[in-house]
């Protein structure tokens, strides 16, 4: 089972932090759909348990990506709906907005997905997500004690991320 992470690799429990910014949650998934990191800053509504929530989020992104790849009005050859695509292949999306939140999404060429949920009136966060990806590379991937595919438990990464997300406009 590649796409939905098994129970043995459950993400670390969210550490509640106090902050006055407009970011709600952040998710990091790897290419197999395992949730490497979940942080929440301000989430009053919790309808599901964490694991189901992560699965639902990954499923939403996966299906939305196949939807945008099929709907792409600028390319003539789109293939069939629902065929899994490699990162960077086909038309993807970078954000969607509802009346209560805005979700920004980035996928790295290696299939790492970074999702940031913020206030609906937040501007374009593509650069911020790239910066968070850089933080991930610097503090997590280059950490010799980190094994790829495992949930992230790097103290330095968490504190730097907190500091950065708190400063987001």
């Amino acid at each position, binding site marked *: 089972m590649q796409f939905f992470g098994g129970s043995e690799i459950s993400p670390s429990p969210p550490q509640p932090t106090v902050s006055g910014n407009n970011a709600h949650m952040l998710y990091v998934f790897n290419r197999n759909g395992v949730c490497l990191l979940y942080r929440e800053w301000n989430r009053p509504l919790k*309808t599901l348990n964490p694991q189901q929530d992560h699965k639902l989020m990954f499923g939403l992104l996966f299906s939305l990506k196949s939807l*945008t790849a099929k709907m792409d*009005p*600028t390319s003539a050859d789109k293939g069939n709906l629902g065929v899994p695509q490699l990162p960077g292949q086909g038309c993807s999306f970078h*954000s969607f*907005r509802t009346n209560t939140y805005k979700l920004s999404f980035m996928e790295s060429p290696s299939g790492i997905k970074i999702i940031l949920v913020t206030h609906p009136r937040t501007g374009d966060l593509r650069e911020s997500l790239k910066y968070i990806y850089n933080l991930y590379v610097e503090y997590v991937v280059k950490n010799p004690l980190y094994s790829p595919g495992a949930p992230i438990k790097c103290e330095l990464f968490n504190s730097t991320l907190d500091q950065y997300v708190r400063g987001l406009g």
Partner: protein
Amino acid sequence: MKRSNLPIKYGKYPYLPLKLPCLALETCSFRQTTNARVRLKKRKDLIKMAAIYSLYIINKSGGLIFYKDYGSAGRMDTNDTLRLASLWHSMHAISQQLSPIPGCSGIELLQADTFDLNCFQSLTDIVIAGTKVFVVSEPGTLHMEYLLKYVYELYTDYVLKNPFYEMEMPIRCELFDINLTQAVQKDRVALLGR
């Protein structure tokens, strides 16, 4: 090949029909003809360039009841549009479940790499899911929410008030089509936004 095998009309000037269109171009210089070609291509691009790619209306159970294409590349067959519509319906519902704050009513704007998708959900029947109108447009197209509201108005006026229309069934109303075509014209979109 034997001479007798050739069609009769090519008997004397075998390639005449192919050469004829070139005669006009041969009279001007090469540069002029390429310029003319570029200009013609630009004009065609201008005609092709539409702010809106396609429009969908889906009923409250996710069935596609209206679809119109305004010039997207690569034709999609009916099955594909039906699948996309029901996929959008479920994505819309899931996005409500993932909201960090109570009172979420689903995706309003999806920004993809090559298009924007604006969605409007009717305010009645919203407890489960309402009728949804969504439009696929060029990235950064403004005032789409006004157009969607206007399309919904047309739907209520020309479809729901039509005594021959059955609820939740595909829309086949001529007056709706006519008014929709008028509404989608580019300047009209800009006008509604004012």
